[in-house]
């Protein structure tokens, strides 16, 4: 007669005999698919299974070719009276007042504007968010739109502003900052408008069809 411990072990071994090969196979397929950047047999099935288990395999942080610049988002609001308001990034480099005023010169390629370095401690998540929200990549359209909506709401809550009534237009600017090398200061090389799509959000808090500009 088997003891409860022995029965437990047998059940665990039987489960493992099925689960381990399937799980390891899925892990390898998803990792290989990500590395080779192409479809492999069972990649879709592996992605669904690992997604359901919360076991997605997404590791590469710095690939072979990472850019020599970073981008940070600035939300530009035009109030009903014509006054512009700039909502600067939460966690990324800070800007001088002079540079902040120059955001109005969006889409210029004017160079040599200096941004101040910010010491980063415990802000990794927001930096990740703002990096994605300022990317012109088409796949991040949803992130950009949600970021603008949530930044507007937070600002409006803090300032007591009615976005639907008091905001005339909304825009998102992507500030491109050259990475520092050999002690050179951080330099803003361009400020580009990037697209947002209010139609993605049923409860977009500001007037919908009034973007200042549309980006890529």
């Amino acid at each position, binding site marked *: 007669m*088997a003891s409860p*411990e*022995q029965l437990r*072990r047998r059940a*665990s*071994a039987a489960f*493992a005999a099925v689960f381990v090969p399937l799980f*390891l196979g899925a*892990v*390898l397929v998803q*990792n*290989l698919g*990500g*590395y080779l950047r192409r479809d492999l047999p069972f990649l879709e099935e592996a992605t*669904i*299974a*690992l*997604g*359901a*288990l*919360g076991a*997605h395999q997404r*590791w*590469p*942080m*710095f*690939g*072979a*070719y*990472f850019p020599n610049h*970073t981008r*940070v988002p600035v939300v530009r609001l035009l109030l009903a009276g014509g006054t512009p308001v700039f909502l600067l990034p939460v966690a*990324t480099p800070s800007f001088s007042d002079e540079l902040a005023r120059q955001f109005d010169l969006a889409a210029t390629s004017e160079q040599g504007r200096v941004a101040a*370095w*910010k*010491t*980063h*401690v*415990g*802000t*990794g*998540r927001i*930096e*990740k968010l*703002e*990096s994605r*929200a300022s990317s012109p990549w088409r796949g991040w359209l*949803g*992130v950009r739109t*949600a*970021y603008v909506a*949530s930044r507007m709401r*937070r600002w409006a809550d803090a300032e007591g502003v009615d976005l639907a009534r008091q905001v005339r237009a909304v825009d998102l600017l992507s500030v491109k900052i050259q990475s520092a*090398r*050999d*002690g*050179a200061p*951080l330099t803003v090389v361009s400020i580009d408008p990037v697209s947002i799509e209010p139609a*993605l959000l*049923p409860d977009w808090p500001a007037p919908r069809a009034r973007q200042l500009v549309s980006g890529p």
Partner: protein
Amino acid sequence: MTRAFARVVSYWSTPIRAERMAAFRIVIGALVAIDAVITILPHAAWYLGADGLHPEALFRLVAEPGTWSLVPADATAAEARAYVLALVAASIGVACGLATRISSIAMWALLVSIHNRSPYVLNGGDFLLQVAALYLVLMPAGRAWSVDAVVRRRRRREASPWVLPWPYRLAQIQLAVMYLFTGLSKLPTPDGPHVGQWISGQALAGALGTATMARFEILSTIPWWVSAPAVWATLVWEISFPVLLLFGRTRAPALAFGVLVHLGIFATLEVGAFSFASLSYYVLFLPPAWFGPAEPPREPGDPR
């Protein structure tokens, strides 16, 4: 061939001390709790709420296949905070070994739910913690160093301190897979524009000059050729990590180098909990002798 096969079978089936899983459980539970309190709770409404970063409309649009979340799309700010607090409670339960299996399932379900509701603020460390939570669900991690074990002892219903190792092995392999593919992704592609920053040795200087990630401005003054040897060593170490683990003589140096790499990343770059999530897996490779006898006693009917 037969010997190699026997070693593989033994690797997957020879019982190990429950304390080894308990150590992993404590580290992961504590890390999830600390990370949730410091980096998620203060922004819970922004990350998870109905007016936050990932409203239902976007969730439906961009969610990957298989993705799910217990956090409702219309969560209020208070509800969003409640879900994060529930995660904190579950992960403390995991760390203490209190109703370990139930706490592990709750921690896994809440962690996956919260991450899936806020995918734009995640990094590699979050995915490592998610998978670790899954492995803890599969492990009998409450057998030792836990409130559960104390309760069982008082009721004189102690369970064997030897447990089947397969979930533990999966977690060990996970770390090796992570390093291998992270390393491979740093190699130049045939159609790439140039050899890339890792082969040219400029990757670390590039990262330390990145305004959104490098912790301190002064790090950007380090010339690339000073950091280049560390770049090449890291690349070789990552790709060879699975092989280095196979041999007793190379295992400890590989792990020691990894500790230095992760402490270096933590000291210089703001990448969330990635460094500590990675290091928490290193507990899986601590010498078995630290946890008690290396070999389990033979029992009648032992599945070995």
